């Protein structure tokens, strides 16, 4: 092991099993500070990370909205403490997958798919804290060395295409072949457990309710199962969920997280309201991105989960869009119901009228014309207004 592991963390990590968790949950280790590259490998990796970050700054996929960025930064700082969160640079990237990662140079990337899936601030803190733990424990470097010695180029072929999410990614990535952003870091079960324990330590010192920490993983796995079911595949690997890239997480993990949470015996906040307020204006866009993935079952599961507490107009509208897109005769009927419910909640939702009209027309129901007329009245300058008018004659 050629990287520096804080001594306290090393003690924390040595052979801890869930059964001993009660005895061996020590105090949060003092933060050793930002790490500078020491070896040739590390400098190479930093160089790639730095270049990725430069491209990120100018990228069209990054959301630069000040309020959203400040909110996510605040969550990270509440999760891991201010000592650790200074020096972290956060980039919110517009991608529909559930993913977050942290490069060795301190750049943290959060996909919008993650922001869509967490239910409250405590869950978001759990995921981002987990990533920070990998960063603090220098797991990224280890992953890089591991991949370098593995001759499995085909694991990389997919990364080549999938890894470069910056709008302006250079030819670099044709030849560099690794994404410094982290879809590359294939953590095995041990490293995941190490990161889990350290992140539990952050969260213990945080204002959050530890009982919120396990659920997000279960839901992510259930969603991956739904996706696989929809594609008539067996979901033996959760690589549809980018976060769990090349290793399966399992029930054991969720169990020990729940157990650790209970043993912490602390109460805390989930800050649901603050979270919903911060994300309210973004959710329709994130839902639209999700719909583009052509994953009916996974998206249906996700929308269902989000709507479990309360079906809001944007969720009903998205569900309408989802069913209308699949377009089987029964789907079109369901879609009209969802759109009508969306309109009932939010009569100003012009897009819902559009969806309703199109679903009806596709079912050969002439009433669709009326809904489309309403849409055109509400949005005369819509980009497809001319096209929609031809359908209304």
């Amino acid at each position, binding site marked *: 092991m050629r990287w520096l592991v804080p001594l306290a963390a090393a003690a924390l990590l040595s052979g801890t099993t869930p059964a001993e968790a009660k005895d061996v949950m020590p105090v949060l280790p003092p933060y050793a500070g930002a790490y500078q590259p020491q070896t*040739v*490998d590390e*400098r*190479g*990796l*930093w*160089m*790639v990370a730095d270049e990725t970050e430069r491209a990120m700054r*100018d990228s069209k996929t990054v959301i630069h909205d000040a309020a959203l960025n400040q909110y996510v930064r605040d969550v990270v700082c509440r999760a891991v403490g201010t000592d650790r969160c200074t020096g972290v640079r956060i980039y919110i990237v517009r991608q529909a997958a559930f993913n977050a990662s942290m490069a060795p140079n301190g750049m943290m990337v959060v996909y919008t798919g993650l922001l869509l899936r967490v239910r409250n601030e405590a869950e978001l803190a759990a995921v981002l804290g987990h990533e920070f733990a990998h960063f603090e424990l220098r797991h990224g470097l280890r992953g890089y060395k591991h*991949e*370098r*010695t*593995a*001759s*499995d*180029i*085909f694991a*990389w*072929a997919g990364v080549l295409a999938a890894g470069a999410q910056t709008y*302006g990614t*250079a*030819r*670099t990535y044709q*030849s*560099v*072949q*690794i994404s410094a952003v982290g879809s590359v870091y294939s953590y095995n079960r041990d490293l995941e457990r190490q990161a889990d324990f350290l992140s539990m330590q952050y969260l213990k010192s945080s204002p959050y309710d530890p009982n919120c920490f396990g659920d997000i993983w279960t839901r992510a796995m259930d969603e991956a199962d739904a996706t696989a079911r929809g594609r008539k595949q067996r979901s033996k690997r959760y690589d549809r969920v980018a976060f769990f890239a090349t290793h399966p997480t399992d029930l054991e993990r969720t169990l020990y997280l729940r157990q650790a949470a209970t043993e912490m015996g602390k109460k805390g906040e989930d800050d649901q309201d603050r979270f919903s307020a911060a994300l309210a204006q973004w959710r329709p866009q994130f839902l639209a991105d999700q719909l583009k993935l052509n994953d009916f079952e996974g998206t249906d599961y996700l929308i269902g989960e989000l709507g479990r507490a309360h079906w809001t107009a944007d969720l009903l509208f998205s569900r309408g869009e989802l069913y209308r897109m699949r377009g089987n005769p029964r789907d079109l009927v369901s879609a009209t119901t969802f759109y009508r419910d969306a309109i009932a909640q939010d009569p100003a939702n012009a897009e819902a009228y559009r969806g309703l009209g199109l679903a009806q027309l596709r079912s050969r129901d002439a009433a669709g014309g009326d809904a489309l007329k309403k849409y055109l009245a509400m949005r005369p300058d819509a980009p497809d207004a001319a096209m929609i008018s031809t359908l209304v004659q």
Partner: protein
Amino acid sequence: MAAWGDSMLRFVFRPMLALLLMAGGAHAALAQEKSGIKEGFALKQGSARILLVRPTIKVGAQSTGGMFEPNADWTAQAKDNLGAALDTAQSKLGNAVIVADEPIGAAAETMADYRALFSVLADSVIQYQFFPGNRLPTKKRKGVFDWTMGPGVAEIAKGSGADYALFIFNEDQYGSTGRKILQVFAALAYVSVQSGQHRGFAGLVDLHSGDLVWLNADLKMGGDVRTPEGAQKRVAQLLEDFPGSAAFAKSAVKVAAK
């Protein structure tokens, strides 16, 4: 036609892993170096100002499995050495060379757009004109070298008084020990393994018309860019057959041979 696409995918994504690992190099069976020049183009010494656009330089190692490992130290050295070598080489040419500034703001986007377009253009020339295998009928005709960036490219040289822009791309992957060992074993098995990959291209664009007047592509270059002498040799290769540069090529070779 569908068959070819499918068989390509089968070829790439199914077993015979070892064999595939070994068959490195896209154009292994084909010619490695080629240059093209626009019909009738000539560059008189001392007659023009040339804008040197920031070269794209990537240097790293190639692991046993063929992975590119970026190496920051090497890349920094290469950038310095190639920069110095380019300075000397161009001054020998007798044409004034202006090194492009790093633009900011909107100008940066324009510069990025044109550097990106140049890469796509050069790829097209290499794929569809230079090397057999996938050439386009309209580009195969004798004497035809009809490529352009569009007259808008003059934007990147605004205020510099330059007549031409020189774009350079250089990529080096040095075969690691492991890769070299693999090469030896593979040779015993009569399989050819490419260790290391050194490719680059250099192109000259007429800023008044936007036309690409010269492109030199080399998929197997020599010279170790981490050393000043190697960088000189590399630049000589990149700028080989540079318009009006017979004298230049000769003197550069002499330098490298010393």
